[in-house]
């Protein structure tokens, strides 16, 4: 059975509550991988478009927000990893659209245990193996590029070895990871389906900078301590280490995610004779339960892909995947001049220059530290781009400027696109400042943008202030689309605006 291409057609698929994974590969048949990807909530459609464009596959968008599913030949895995709109990847073992949970806790958990031996693990495990061999090649290059001291990341708190439960307080939803036979000490259950919070704690305070960076660093620190890596001989049978991560959302389940992870994990250990290990695992089994939708998968990424461009973090660094989604929304055309007038550490322009090299990108900020970090992040990007033959890194169509958003030193109508992450009241400045800042920003952005064809994509949490400011500049900007997103646990919105044909005045009005 193949995936239907339309979002929302999940219900219309073949009858029955179980959808079997790709048919077991026959002799000579090519291995197919059914991939699940987590994406920034609200940008599922954008991600599906990128998958269609780069891999030729149709995607299904899950009811569990922030996830899409698609099928590709396993040999396309490298391209899958290069998707810019995706945070994490997993291969699907089996998906149940309408799983009937028994009301009694013991029975429901027993069902989950019994499920393990019935699941079609073979092909997904092959995909996992293939993915592993790809990762090993990547890790060597990554060690090279990292700027910060290796710190143990979310998966390996405090150097604990194969023991204590991980209580991840950043997650709003229920997330439990459990080796067998260890009693969980914490974890939260979500009674009502909630939006998926970014797992890796995107918005961190500046003095916790290290915790921001840990995500990128994981690959290298973990591969160094991975069980049996690179040391086993060809013919040796290696005992795999694993853990189970369970995410559960819904108010009708009789069990917690901790219990599900524990019992499912026990059955996995029985079945495979693997060793349970919380911190140094080879295989991460995912058990995602969202009301009656159950998905069993195996993780293909350890660290989130979304930090990939940024080595110098600031207090409000935007995820690259979110930056990508915002850029895609305004549909950049070759030669478009794209400006981020409040660029912070430069996440958006850097993503822009990497993915749209035939546009010209300008990053600006008034804060000298932000400007410095943005410039450093660009240097890091240039180092990555160093061609093997020459010693000079190729340049990128990107410049950084220090300026005042309310008084931009740019010619009127000289820019095609403005994309930016507007200050959230709670992080930079206060709500009161936004009240004056937003209208001034929108006017200046309107001035520099080409009438008729120009557009803006603006991310903000202060939706009330934004709506009010927008109502005052209706002669310059029209709202075209709104995407509701989740940024570091906060509800925010991305607005796509189109510049009207009205020419801008060269002199700024008084406020």
């Amino acid at each position, binding site marked *: 059975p193949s995936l239907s291409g339309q979002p929302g057609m999940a219900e219309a698929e073949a009858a029955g509550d179980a959808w079997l994974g790709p048919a077991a590969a026959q002799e000579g048949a090519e291995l197919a991988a059914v991939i699940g990807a987590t994406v920034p909530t609200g940008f599922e459609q954008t991600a599906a478009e990128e998958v269609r464009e780069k891999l030729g596959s149709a995607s299904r968008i899950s009811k569990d927000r922030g996830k899409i599913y698609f099928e590709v030949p396993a040999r396309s895995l490298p391209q899958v990893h290069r998707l810019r709109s995706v945070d994490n990847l997993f291969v699907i073992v089996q998906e149940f659209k309408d799983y009937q949970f028994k009301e009694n806790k013991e029975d429901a958990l027993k069902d989950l245990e019994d499920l393990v031996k019935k699941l079609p693990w073979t092909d997904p495990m092959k995909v996992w193996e293939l993915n592993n061999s790809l990762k090993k090649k990547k890790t060597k290059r990554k060690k090279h590029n990292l700027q910060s001291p290796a710190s143990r990341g979310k998966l390996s708190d405090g150097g604990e070895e194969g023991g204590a439960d991980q209580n991840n307080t950043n997650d709003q939803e229920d997330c439990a990871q459990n080796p067998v036979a260890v009693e969980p000490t914490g974890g939260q259950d979500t009674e009502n389906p909630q939006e998926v919070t970014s797992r890796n704690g995107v918005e961190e305070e500046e003095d916790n900078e290290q915790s921001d960076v840990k995500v990128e660093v994981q690959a290298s620190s973990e591969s160094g301590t991975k069980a049996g890596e690179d040391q086993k001989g060809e013919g040796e049978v290696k005992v795999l280490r694993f853990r189970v991560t369970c995410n559960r959302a819904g108010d009708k389940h009789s069990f917690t995610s901790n219990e599900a992870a524990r019992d499912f994990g026990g059955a996995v250990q029985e079945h495979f004779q693997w060793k349970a290990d919380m911190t140094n695992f080879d295989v991460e089994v995912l058990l995602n339960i969202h009301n009656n939708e159950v998905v069993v998968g195996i993780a293909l990424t350890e660290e989130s892909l979304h930090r990939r461009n940024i080595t110098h973090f600031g207090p409000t660094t935007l995820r690259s995947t979110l930056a990508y989604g915002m850029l895609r929304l305004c549909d950049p055309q070759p030669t478009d001049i794209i400006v981020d007038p409040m660029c912070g550490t430069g996440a958006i322009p850097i993503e822009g220059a990497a993915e749209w090299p035939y546009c010209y990108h300008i990053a600006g900020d008034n804060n000298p530290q932000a400007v410095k970090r943005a410039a450093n992040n660009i240097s890091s990007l240039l180092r990555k781009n160093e061609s093997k033959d020459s010693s000079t890194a190729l*340049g990128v169509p990107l410049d950084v*400027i220090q300026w005042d958003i309310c008084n*931009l030193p740019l010619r009127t109508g000289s820019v095609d696109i403005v994309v930016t992450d507007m200050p959230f009241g709670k992080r930079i400045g206060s709500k009161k400042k936004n009240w004056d800042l937003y209208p001034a920003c929108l006017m200046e952005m309107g001035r520099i943008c080409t009438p008729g064809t120009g557009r803006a994509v603006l991310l903000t949490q202060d939706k009330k202030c934004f709506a009010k400011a927008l109502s005052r500049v209706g002669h310059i900007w029209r709202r075209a689309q709104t995407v509701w997103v989740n940024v570091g646990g906060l509800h925010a919105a991305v607005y796509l605006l189109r510049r009207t044909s009205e020419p801008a005045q060269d002199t700024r009005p008084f406020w």
Partner: protein
Amino acid sequence: MKLLTHNLLSSHVPGLRPGGGFPLRIEAAEVRVRPVPFNAAFVSRLVPRLRWDALREAAESLPPEPTPGYEADEEFLRRLHHVLLEVEVLEGSLQCPDSGRRFPISRGVPNLLLSEDEA
């Protein structure tokens, strides 16, 4: 700072006559040349958007005007590409033509912030 950026920048010192802030005069103390992959269509489409005189002032290697048929003139496009994207001013300043106010360029980044009293 690349010269394409310079072509878009305009001084915003208050009280200037209209257009009096453009173009900023470049005083370059340190310049670097760094190759950027060439794309003819990209450069060609930029031509109508550029302020040609300002660009020429910044880079004397260009002809007095783009000649008709420039879209197909690869030599011209390559020279233009070089000027717009491959020459970077690392250290120096930008001077406002009307007010004379200088804005510093440091490590490739121009600082165009006005001080509190100026704004």
